[in-house]
């Protein structure tokens, strides 16, 4: 059987590794040596699980969306990560990493953010634990996600604008890495997705795996079945998708569908559809698939959704894509906004535009009837109201 998880060298098939300058080596190596040991400790598990339950509000519901199910002729279940504290799946990961950072004795936390959800989730756990927090955010994203910027500031974080490149998530990640290089001893970098040098992709995947751990149990309780027919999730770097896939990856009956941001169309030159447009290469510390020129320059991505506006995907996704285990598709800006409005009016749930990409793909699927489909509703749409308002003249 194919191994879809990380090997002892930090690779997923051809992808992964730790392509980092020497300045980061001691930090990343410390993490590599410690993370599995720390995570396995009874005391870590107790604290992690307790915070997920009492602070985040887990388990998040698995909700059978009746009117959506009627529309598609299949049982559409929504995994309600939007109901988590701070409004997205991102907090599952920051809770895990902040406990690890404390364990390693770090005093200063840095993070990158796109939509601001990871930044808010990081600022939140820093407030919770009394640690200094610096969040890098692209200048463009600061403008389009203003409510999240204000939340981070209110939580006591310093928000530093990234002004290079496309001034979005990729550039914020560059700035966070530069900060880490310049502060090698006291600083811990909480990466917000399943990207970065090994062991980050594996660690973040583990913290997000609670999504499918719960969904699997909930689905069995509600339907009597162990395996859904399909699971769907949107992919920026890919953390909610890996979390949603994790406990189904080795169950080959389950079709895994990852939805990328097509932007204005895959061939429009304004897209973030990484697997469609990308080639193998190295970005932000791991070998994966990324959008780039023939000369190896990273191409500026585009998506209406800040959280998906990233030119790469995590190495485990690259592996799932290349082996054919996962199906990778894309949805345009307009299709995602329409799907957001549709969910709102059929189910009374305003989704994040990121999550709306996953919902939009239901329009393209054909069902025989009665299939069980789980869609990861990775976040709520409060942060996106301005975009929705402009698009729909609300």
């Amino acid at each position, binding site marked *: 059987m194919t191994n879809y998880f990380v090997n002892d*060298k930090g690779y997923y098939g051809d992808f992964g*590794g*730790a*392509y*980092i*300058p*020497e*300045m980061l*080596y*001691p930090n990343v190596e410390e993490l590599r040596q410690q993370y599995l040991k720390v995570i396995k400790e009874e005391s870590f598990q107790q604290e992690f699980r307790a915070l997920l339950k009492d602070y985040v509000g887990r388990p998040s519901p698995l909700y059978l969306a009746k009117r959506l199910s009627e529309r598609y002729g299949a049982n559409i279940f929504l995994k309600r990560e939007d109901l988590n504290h701070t409004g997205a799946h991102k907090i599952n990961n920051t809770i895990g990493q902040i406990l690890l950072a404390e364990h390693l004795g770090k005093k200063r936390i840095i993070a990158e953010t796109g939509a601001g959800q990871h930044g808010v989730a990081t600022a939140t756990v820093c407030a919770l634990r009394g640690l200094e927090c610096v969040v890098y955010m692209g200048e463009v994203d600061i403008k389009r996600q203003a409510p999240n910027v204000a939340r981070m500031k209110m939580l006591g974080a310093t928000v530093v604008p990234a002004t*290079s*490149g496309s001034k979005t998530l*990729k550039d914020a990640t*560059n700035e966070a*890495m*530069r900060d880490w*290089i*310049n502060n*090698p*001893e006291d600083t811990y970098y909480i990466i917000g997705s399943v990207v970065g040098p090994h062991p980050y992709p594996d660690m973040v995947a583990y913290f997000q795996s609670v999504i499918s751990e719960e969904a699997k149990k909930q689905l069995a309780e509600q339907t009597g079945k162990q395996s859904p027919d399909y699971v769907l999730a949107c992919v920026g770097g890919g953390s909610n998708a890996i979390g949603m896939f994790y406990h189904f990856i080795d169950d080959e009956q389950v079709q895994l569908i990852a939805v990328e941001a097509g932007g204005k169309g895959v061939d429009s030159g304004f897209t973030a559809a990484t697997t469609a447009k990308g*080639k*193998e*290469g*190295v*970005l*932000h*510390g791991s070998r994966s698939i*990324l959008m*780039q020129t*023939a*000369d*190896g*320059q*990273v191409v500026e991505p585009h998506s209406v959704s800040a959280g998906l506006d990233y030119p790469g995907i995590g190495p485990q996704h690259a592996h799932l894509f290349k082996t054919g285990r996962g199906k990778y598709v894309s949805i345009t800006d307009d299709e995602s906004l329409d799907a957001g409005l549709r969910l709102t009016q059929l189910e009374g749930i305003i989704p994040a535009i990121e999550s709306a990409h996953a919902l939009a793909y239901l329009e393209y699927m054909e069902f025989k009837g009665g299939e069980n489909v789980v869609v990861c509703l990775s976040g709520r749409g409060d942060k996106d109201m301005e975009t929705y308002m402009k698009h729909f003249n609300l």
Partner: protein
Amino acid sequence: MNRLQQLFENKKKDILSIYYTAGYPNLNDTLTIAEALEQAGADFMEIGFPYSDPVADGEVIQGSSKQALDQGMTLEMLFAQLKDLRKTVNIPILLMGYVNVVLQYGVENFCKKCQEVGVDGCIIPDLPMYEYEELYSECFKKHGISNIFLVTPQTSEERIRKIDDLSNAFIYLLSSAATTGKNLDVSANARAYFSRMRNMNLKNPLMIGFGISDKQTFDSANEYAAGAIIGSAFVKNLDPQDVVGSVGRFMKEFR
């Protein structure tokens, strides 16, 4: 023995290397700057091939890289610009850049081209030791290209010994763990680290880089190493209207 190894064989002190970005300030300045640097007394040089996401670099080299890319610079073009390099330039040349650009070019192709135009070595900061050993070292050796590793104050002794084993030209000692363009930290800590390195009796000579900006920082680096490398300070000084003149004026302080 390549030119780089020869240089370190013959010269043990006061070695000066200059970094600059290919295709900056004007697209076709690459060879002009190399010639001017040799004229002005540089011992060797590092030519950066630009990358869109240079995470180990500070503002100056981010800026020169971006401008070079905007002007149309590519690795392919760099090799074309360096085609007749060895007709006019004799000192050793290193290429410096990020691994993704090399990967897209193809490692074998890259090494072959380096050898063809007369490049002696490479610095690829985000190419890890494990991947270098497994996938690159053979190719580098075959084409006589020296790979240069970086060492920081946080690098363990065990790892430094390993790096010394894998190196065959010099070891690049970072003055501190920092992105390029910061000022040299000549604190007691840095001096202790430089002394520790010197006293390890490594087989490879040491060059100190990152933060060397003037004669004073160059001299203090020279107390501990075979020489020093200047990057951001040099790049900042390049005058697009008078490239050769600005190289000469900058170098006067040192030579």
